[in-house]
């Protein structure tokens, strides 16, 4: 099984990277871009059968290590392997 975790800054938190990317795209002439935000994804290969257990587990991982909930939000996506 696979878990994909999307981590982004909470809304309202300054995102200097996103801001700089947006400006730089504008400089390059991509004027349709009104805003950019940067986040990260962490993809985990999990050796579990049970989706529910996996979800709970990954939730714990996010809280304990992967995300900093003071400034970040996260979303978990579980993908059953093909």
């Amino acid at each position, binding site marked *: 099984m696979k878990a994909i975790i999307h981590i982004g800054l909470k809304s309202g938190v300054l995102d*200097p*990277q996103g801001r*700089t*990317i947006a400006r*730089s795209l504008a*400089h*390059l002439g991509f004027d349709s871009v009104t805003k950019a935000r*940067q986040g990260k994804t962490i993809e985990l290969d999990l050796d579990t059968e049970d989706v529910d257990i996996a979800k709970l587990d990954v939730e714990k991982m996010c809280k304990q290590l992967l995300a900093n909930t003071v400034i970040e939000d996260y979303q978990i996506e579980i993908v059953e392997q093909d």
Partner: protein
Amino acid sequence: MQSAVIVFPASNCDRDAATALEKITGHKPLMVWHEETTLPKVDFVIIPGGFSYGDYLRSGAIAARSPIVQDIIKKAGTGLPVAGFCNGFQILTEAGLLPGALMRNKGLRFVCRPQKLQVVNTQTMFTSGYNNEEEITVPIAHFDGNYYADDDTLKKLKRTGRILFKYVDNPNGSQNDIAGISNQAGNVLGMMPHPERAIDPLHGGTGGIALFKSIVEAVQ
């Protein structure tokens, strides 16, 4: 000899590079702002270290797309000597003037230390002042100095003598211990260590002096 140092937003070794150039060549370099579209007439260009654009997105990525770099790409193609130190190296790879990429250090930490290097090829305009296989000490200070290129590129770099400096005790995971390389034509140098911080016995030692002297010799 006339030289130029390019200044990007949040370059921070621009002054260091200028100080080194002035000390060794006796001439103050021109400081050229990144928004300029053409380089003034110079014999040599330094792309300095620092955190251009905060290193946001990827180190060197945004600076590599600035107007001045487009002109540097053009002129480097006609033989203008260009050297990029640290962030300058990252910019040169992002701009495609040098092959490969500089990834996050293997230890996932910024490293600043006096670093032993081996000069691998002294038959270049940047290294002629060194002895073959000479060991020098030059400070490093970077987060993204882990040199990566695919196998073919690595082989080619080696075969054509384009690896100029290697780390003794690899500090960042670079492939083949690569610390500095040149382009095919030999007029573009990129290296992670800071030779401009090694020109003064009181600060960083003197391991970088020969590099600047080699360049002066070559362009005069």
